[in-house]
């Protein structure tokens, strides 16, 4: 998964939230792969950012999770979902506390 900002995007250069979304919904790779009609290995490569999906597969994933494609894939590091939804960081960093 490369949902965290510090993580490199893998060979594809794309960041994604597939692993987070899958974990949230309690779906296995195999179940997601069956729904998308791809090999379960492909889901692993997608999650690690080692494979950039076709537009058809990206739209299919968006439809499956009920989210727009840009909420799943991004060329820039993705913020944590909770941070994006609620806007502010819930836990201050050490630097913020010292300041």
């Amino acid at each position, binding site marked *: 998964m490369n949902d965290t900002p510090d993580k490199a995007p893998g060979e594809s250069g794309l960041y994604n939230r597939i692993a987070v979304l899958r974990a949230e919904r309690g779906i296995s*790779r195999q179940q997601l792969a069956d729904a998308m009609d791809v090999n379960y*290995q492909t889901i*692993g490569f997608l999650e690690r950012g080692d494979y950039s999906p076709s537009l*058809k597969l990206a739209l299919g994933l968006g439809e499956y999770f009920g989210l727009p494609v840009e909420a799943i894939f991004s060329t820039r590091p993705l913020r944590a979902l909770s941070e994006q939804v609620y806007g502010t960081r819930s836990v201050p960093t050490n630097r913020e506390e010292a300041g």
Partner: protein
Amino acid sequence: MRRELTIGGFRLDMSSRRRRRTLVVLVYLFLSGTLACVGLWAPSNLANCSLFLFAVFLANRFVFGGRSTRGLVQPFSPDLRPIWFKDDPPPSSAIDRWFWRRSPSRKDLQTDERDERRRDRAHYLAYRVLAFLTMLVWLLFAIVRKGPQGSSFGISFDFALFASVAAAMLAMTLPQAILLWTEPDMEAEAAGD
């Protein structure tokens, strides 16, 4: 790509890239040895060349795949399908059922967009390697023909036949070998769940 190689009822786990690379090296050592025997013995003998190409066919069919429904790599062409799938209802005749039992399931032959992208990339790389080797052979002969003493001699028929058989072997096996060599370690089905 399949995780397991089935030969003569034995199942070999090929999910690790290291194992697949070892397999590729072993197959090419065997084929190169056979080709060397053909080349040293009688390269212009049609029977010897045919025997060698049959060995390449067997390596493709039972080990590499790609050009058949067996082997590690799934068929490159979607048209390459068995007469029966194992998930079809069993046929009525006993002979047909014998083949049906040995047929793969639909899922076993299914490739997705990533497989197809990698397949295309492997063919592109194989094409470049073959083009480079062809140019290399041409260059060697261009240099030898001129020679330091200005001597000139044509390419012997034996060598031309030997080179074309070697090129045929590479054309038939290189895309699958590149796929087996480059595909990363395969995860178990339950991994990451």
